[in-house]
């Protein structure tokens, strides 16, 4: 297989893992202030406190491997997204330190870190969604340099994708809470998961209709023969998963809503990848235009083959250590 394509697959995989893992803990953060009781917030926080750091590391992985394997893409996209990246990084700080400082704060002042955690998580999700929209819309590039302005990323489409991702992460977070919590907290999580699922489905539908209409090459990718045959299960599977998630939320099931939401995210992500391939920087630059020399790709891929299985091994170990329901008595150190 082509080494450039393998590198692209590695990054795509890293970003997907990031979206799924940090997605649920950002989602818990997005829902944080909406939870009715302080007791809910304690449980919500301790359900993600031991694992959020590992989840967030996938963000550095995605950025790091993009930098390593496609340095020119990095040098085009990051200046173009300067403002949302900086806002995201600052919001991440509020969110990250809240984990530590909230626990050590007197309950009467805890609202400061509750707000920081909620606001930070929401802004991070919003910025990531807007960046996703901007990446889909593409950048003005001349001679492998970004030539657009500082606010080109801000469009009605990117605002839409921004809100879509906030809702998507919130859905992941609420279904995570259904799985990890009990009683009142779980009931509340079920009650917010319902509208969130409907909103997310609307957004998926909107993006699926808008992109083929706007970009002829995406329409061609999906609707030309024989692609349409191979790709036709994607909308079907999406519908099936959405139905199963809904049933899980309204019944007594605790695991299926989360895993079905994960499935929805994976399918949407694959759908996007199918639409954008082979372009890394829309609308003109492909993976092959932007790849690092072979010596660098080989190094990164070699180290990944060796280290990522180990990373997965101990990540699974840590999740198993903290498996099961989170109650108020557990997990504080």
């Amino acid at each position, binding site marked *: 297989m082509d080494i450039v394509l393998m590198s692209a697959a590695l990054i795509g995989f890293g970003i997907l893992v990031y979206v799924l893992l940090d997605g649920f803990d950002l989602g818990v953060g997005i829902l944080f202030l909406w939870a009715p009781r302080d007791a809910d917030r304690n449980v919500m926080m301790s359900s993600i406190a031991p694992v959020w750091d590992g989840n967030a590391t996938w963000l550095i992985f995605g950025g790091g491997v993009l930098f390593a394997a496609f340095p020119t893409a990095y040098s085009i996209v990051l200046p173009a997204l300067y403002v949302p990246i900086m806002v995201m990084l600052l919001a991440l700080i509020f969110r990250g330190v809240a984990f530590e400082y909230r626990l050590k704060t007197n309950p009467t002042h805890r609202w400061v870190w509750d707000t920081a955690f909620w606001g930070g998580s929401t802004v991070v999700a919003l910025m990531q969604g807007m960046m996703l929209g901007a990446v889909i819309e593409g950048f003005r590039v001349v001679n492998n340099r970004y030539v657009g302005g500082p606010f080109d990323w801000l469009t009605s489409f990117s605002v839409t994708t921004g809100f879509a991702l906030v809702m998507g992460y919130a859905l992941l977070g609420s279904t995570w809470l259904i799985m990890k919590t009990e009683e009142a907290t779980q009931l509340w999580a079920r009650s917010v998961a319902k509208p969130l699922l409907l909103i997310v489905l609307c957004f998926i539908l909107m993006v699926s209709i808008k992109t083929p209409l706007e970009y002829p090459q995406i329409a061609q990718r999906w609707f030309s023969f024989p692609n349409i045959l191979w790709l036709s299960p994607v909308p079907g599977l999406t519908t099936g998963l959405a139905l199963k998630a809904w049933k899980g939320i309204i019944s007594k099931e605790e695991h299926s809503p989360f895993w079905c939401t994960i499935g929805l995210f994976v399918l949407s992500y694959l759908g996007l990848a199918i639409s954008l391939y082979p372009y890394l920087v829309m609308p003109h630059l492909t993976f092959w235009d932007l790849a*690092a020399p072979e010596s660098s790709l080989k190094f990164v891929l070699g180290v990944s083959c060796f280290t990522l299985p180990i990373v997965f091994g101990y990540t699974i170990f*840590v999740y198993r250590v903290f498996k099961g329901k989170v109650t108020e008595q557990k997990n504080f150190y």
Partner: protein
Amino acid sequence: MDVALLSRIQFAFTMGFHIIWPILTIGLVTFLAITEACWLKTDNPVYLKLYKFFAKIFALAFGMGVVTGIPLAYQFGTNFSEFSHQAGAIIGPLLGVEVMTAFFLEAAFIGVMLFGWNHVSPKVHFLATVLVAVGTYNSTFWVISANSWMQTPQGHGFEAGRMFVEDWWQIIFNPSFPYRLSHMLVATYLSAALFVSGICAYFLLKRVHIEVAKKGFKMAILMVAILAPIQIFIGDLHGLHTKEHQPAKVAAIEALWETRQGAPLVLWAIPDRELATNRYAIEIPKLASLILTHDWNGEVKGLNEFKEVGIPSVATVFYAFRLMVGLGTLFLFVGVWGAWATYRGNLYRSRWLQRLSIICAPLGVVATISGWIVTEVGRQPWIIQGVMKTRDALSPIIPEIVSLSLLGFVIVYTLMGFAFLYYVHHLIQKGPETFVLEEEWLELVTHTAHITPKGK
């Protein structure tokens, strides 16, 4: 101000603030691993109390390190995109490997370290501590390798305006790497030892938590006694090596404007860039030549040799170097005093040593940052020594936007810095005795922190 200066200030500020936390955490986690090993071996609960107390401070510092570290990698792209474009094939993989071998390891096992006491056995818990320590070393290894390559680049070639790798071995183990790695690792141990000894000295001075404080103070101050002379020795080797590879940096350190034989050691001066001379200089004749060439009349290159390509900000490098060396000498003094007091058996009664230790608690971090200022500012105008200039490395962005993000970082980091100090102060006031597991749950979970009786 232009994009170049603003981007440099922003990177320097975010880097300078970030490095505080790795300095503390790399050293502290090593200290924690030693403490936990002692606990497992002796079953003495004092070690466990010591562990739990410093693990709390470690957790705070680690959290700060994670969130302030992410902006650095992203700034390579947002603010120095030409650097990313041209050198990404070399720097990118080094940072990517850092993520894969270090960040994941730290992030996974710090959860077990902090939250896992009731979920895993003590031995597995110890393993988690050790793995976090290994993660911090891996991280230091790769990031110092990347930085050292920018100081002493080799093993790369050029093709179509971009660098590519000819030999990974030469890139990773570039000439200045061993010096910089050992200097930095010892700096983190020394800084953490000073930090621990300062806090324990505070307890001793206030006569609280005596048992825990004695143990921690002795461990830490003896660490200072061992590490301070080693650090001075490594620093000297590093300086001699820098003279071979980056003579302009050494000329700025010595504020030597003209190449000369028998160069004096300038103890203090006000370097004047306009006139290319020093004002109010206090010098020791010929000593710089002796130190740098081991010959009274050896030739030392002056800044005049580098006028064509540009020279760094001499005053910054000059003063930062003197601050670092001055503090290093102070640490040597503290270490020798501590070792002597231990030998005489009056370590815990020596009030002045305790007071001095408290003052030194944050100074290891200050000395390390000074050292980084010397090496980074001293490399200017180059971003990659002799290969690429900083002003050719910039992103196509406008200064207004950079000013705003810089302002954002200054405000947020100042807030976070104060929050850290506030909570560390809070932890120190509570002291190590209170961190008994069951009680802590009660305190955190029920909302009665202020009425829960302390000290079980």
